[in-house]
């Protein structure tokens, strides 16, 4: 595990840098391919909607011996035409689930009574669910209203907290996650239940949560950037993504562990609601982590690079690179990872081979008690904007 610590150190320093932003075309292509498959599946296969969306009657009752054929017979006798009978086995025993189309009141009562008599169970052990056709459309409508309100609020919050371009990046990533999650449901053919809808809505929150953490670092790294000529916006953002990479991995693992435990436990005990929810979350969280790194940041950078100030900065950086020691720099960094990113551009290698010491030396200036006070006075200002380039220069 110490290797991840090493990696964390190298990522933080920019010694190892994965080019997330520069290679955006590659990530876009991968995501586009996945999205195309998802959308195609949604259009061609559609979603497997549960009884809550279609309307119908479901009766589930425990029985050790009752047969599927018997249950079907009872349902048909009660006037049902479209009958689906399934056996459910969990740790608490075996039960039979009978699903029919919407039955009139008398039919619904006859179905329950018939099953209770046929299988000789106590009426208190029977689970009944009667859903009108209107229910599903109502849930869908409410979910969509909720989605719209949520997106509006979030767009507002992100614009205020970060800026418009980053908000767009975050929302693009969010749409990406949602389409993939729903697409996976369509591809695999999982049943969509109200619990699944809860799961979908939660992904909204999670996907953005993850993006916010990455963006916060991006903002910190790019503050005061336009004034200098050290690196372009994209390079600074890419450094941020790399610096938060270990966090992203850890967070995803930690968020997925409880969800995975639901996925594992729920089917054993027959808690379908939990399982439906966890499945949506599992896919969504995985997609959310991916998109924060590979979609949200590149999109935000792409938009940001269109700003005149950022274009000017990019030119200055290019000029500086071309004029100076650019060739040697590229050669030096090429070994560890992609070139042309922060690590490469900043590796103005000095003769001093003990890189960390030099870096530590740089930190010493800001790291003492004095500097610390200065920092707490102006959070993120000189500390983030100038210090890091300074350190790189030392190298």
């Amino acid at each position, binding site marked *: 595990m110490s290797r991840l*610590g090493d*990696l*964390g*150190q190298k990522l933080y320093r920019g010694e190892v840098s994965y080019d997330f932003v520069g290679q955006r075309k590659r990530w876009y292509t991968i995501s586009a391919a996945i999205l195309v498959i998802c959308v195609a599946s949604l259009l061609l296969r559609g979603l497997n909607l549960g009884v809550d969306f279609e309307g119908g009657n479901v009766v589930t009752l425990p029985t050790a011996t009752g047969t599927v054929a018997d249950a079907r017979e009872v349902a048909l006798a009660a006037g049902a035409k479209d009958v689906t009978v399934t056996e459910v086995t969990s740790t*608490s025993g075996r039960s039979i689930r009978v699903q029919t189309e919407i039955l009139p009141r008398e039919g619904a009562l006859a179905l329950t009574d018939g099953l209770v008599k046929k299988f000789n169970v106590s*009426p*208190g052990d029977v*689970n*009944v*669910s*009667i*859903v*009108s056709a209107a*229910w599903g459309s109502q*849930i869908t*409508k*409410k979910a969509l209203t*909720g989605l719209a309100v*949520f997106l509006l*609020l979030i767009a507002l919050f992100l614009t205020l*907290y970060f800026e418009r371009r980053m908000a767009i990046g975050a929302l693009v990533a969010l749409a990406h996650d949602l389409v993939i999650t729903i697409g996976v449901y369509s591809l695999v053919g999982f049943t969509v239940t*109200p*619990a699944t809808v*809860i799961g979908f*809505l939660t992904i909204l*929150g999670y996907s953005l*949560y993850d993006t*916010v953490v990455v963006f916060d*670092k991006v903002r910190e790294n790019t503050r005061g950037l336009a004034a200098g000529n050290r690196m372009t916006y994209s390079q600074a953002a890419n450094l941020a993504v790399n610096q938060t990479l270990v966090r992203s991995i*850890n*967070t995803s693992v*930690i*968020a997925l*562990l*409880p*969800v995975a435990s*639901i996925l*594992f436990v729920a089917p054993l*005990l*027959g*808690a379908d*609601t*939990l399982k439906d929810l966890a499945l949506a*979350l599992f896919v969504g969280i995985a997609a959310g982590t991916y998109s924060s790194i590979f979609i949200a940041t590149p999109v935000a950078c792409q938009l940001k690079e269109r700003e005149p100030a950022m274009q000017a900065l990019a030119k200055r950086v290019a000029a500086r690179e071309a004029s100076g020691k650019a060739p040697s720099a590229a050669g030096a960094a090429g070994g560890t990872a992609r070139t042309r990113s922060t690590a490469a551009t900043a590796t103005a290698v000095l003769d001093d081979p003990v890189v*960390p*010491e030099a870096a*530590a*030396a740089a*930190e*010493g*200036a*800001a*790291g003492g*008690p004095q500097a*610390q006070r200065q*920092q*707490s006075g102006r959070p993120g200002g000189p500390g983030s904007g100038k210090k890091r380039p*300074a350190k790189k*220069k*030392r190298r």
Partner: protein
Amino acid sequence: MAAPTAPRPGRAIAVITIAVVALYAWMFISGNTTPKLGLDLRGGTSLTLQPVVPEGSDTVITDDAVNQAVEIIRARVDGQGVAEASVTKQGSGANSTIVVEVPGQNEQDLFDKIGKTAKLGFRPVLRSGPPTVVVPTPTPTATPTPSGSASPSVGSTPSPSTTASSTVSPSSTGNPRPATGLKAATASPTVSPTPTPTPTPTPSASSTSVIPSTPITAADQKAFDNLDCTKPIPPEQRPADLPAKTMVTCSSTGAEKFILGPELIPGSDITGASAGLLTSSQGVTTGEWVVNLTFNGDATTKFRDVTRQMFAQTNGSDANRFAIVLDAQVISAPTVNGVISDGRPQISGNFTQQSANDLGNQLKYGALPLAFVPNNLQTISPTLGSDQLRAGILAGLLGLLLVVFYSLFYYRGLGLVSVASLALAGLLTYGLLVLLGHTMGYTLSLAGIAGAIVSIGITADSFVVLFERIRDEMRDGRTLRVAVETGWKRAQRTILAADAVSLIAAVALYLLAVGGVQGFAFTLGLTTLIDVAVVFLFTKPLLTKLARTKFYGNGHKWSGVSPDRLGIHRPTPSARATARKGEPGSNSAAKEA
């Protein structure tokens, strides 16, 4: 914000510890040690009611009307003697629904007991007929008319004309009952003296009376002809019950159909309703169940006049009947056998004890201001409920264990801080769920448990963000003590921003609730707030304290902040030494930048 906590970490920890202790002290003193469980975890029946606007009505579904309906339904549920029932409104305006939850399982007819609108009214019968659709021939409609026109001719006899032949045998009345004819003659002397024995359909000889004369319009007649009462008609397809207008509708049994005049007496004039057995005129109790009504003063007078006038009409004719309309269907259309002057009519009509009780209850607690249809009915057995609870708890514990294991594995000593913080967050969450359950009536549902499980990840992530920041600061060469403060400075903003997103999601979901979403959103929001409290008042102060210890401060190999684990390959003291050496250089570099 970090400034006050930095020098006095003990105080913050004391505050949150006292809060937890107080919470648990309350729990044990009051004896409420478990959260209130939702129906899906303890078994029971839940019914979702959707307000509907009947065709042709211009009713608007308002929050006020829905709230009023909630009150009435609650009264009806209580009237059923159901303990621990809950009636709540979800959503708002036209999108609102009412959710009724009762503990029992055999409640498939729950809607019948509590969800009926129970809009009751008394209307005169203008025309009645068999329930089937009338095929083209317009002639049969003529049959009832003769009887209508016959009786007024009786009434007109005392006046000028001497032609006795016109008085007596009105050909159509099969069995001429002289008694009725006589009574009519005496009872309504006010009849207009018009001598012309018109055969035209002016049925209301007594038009000066309390029952307004209403001609049957062609449109009503057509609707009547086309109405098919042989199949049950769901509430949302029934005609609008507008008091001032005529109404074409079926009997609830489907045996007859009617054209009814404008409402004579509204159901709101009923002051009491109870079920009872019908007693005959000899005082003998029959086996038939009826609903006994009590009118208020105005309605008593009016009802007396109405029955007097109807009593005067040919027995068994349409004009001799009034209809009791419940939820836009005629539940009973009795013929009037006498004048009722005490304002205590009985409704009879194929009642069982249960249905008579239910109707009595519905009338007593008032009519619902809106019509509702059952949208979703769930009955969950206690077995399934406890299974789901067990699954939720097991999944939660397993998830927590995995997170603890991973934290310790990756963060070693820091992992202990994360575990302690998670434990505290868990204690707070449980305690608050109990507290809210018993003070605000919050019930924990399966979706709520899922929300709590998901939030384990989000809570733990706050620690991850903080730890990674601290480690980054240390990689920049700071000591743990300094790194905790500078790392916190940055991490707290990230944590707050990320939690704000989570909270916005929770609030939006809560307000625009979809089914079980509300429970989920609630726990998600609650745990997000708890996360903020724990990070600020516990995790960070604890780190500040621990950074002063030897174990963490000197970077013990198991502390999780040792140089080796951070990937810094050098002994800490020498790094600090070099840091001092390199100071001038770095300063110049900073200037350069």
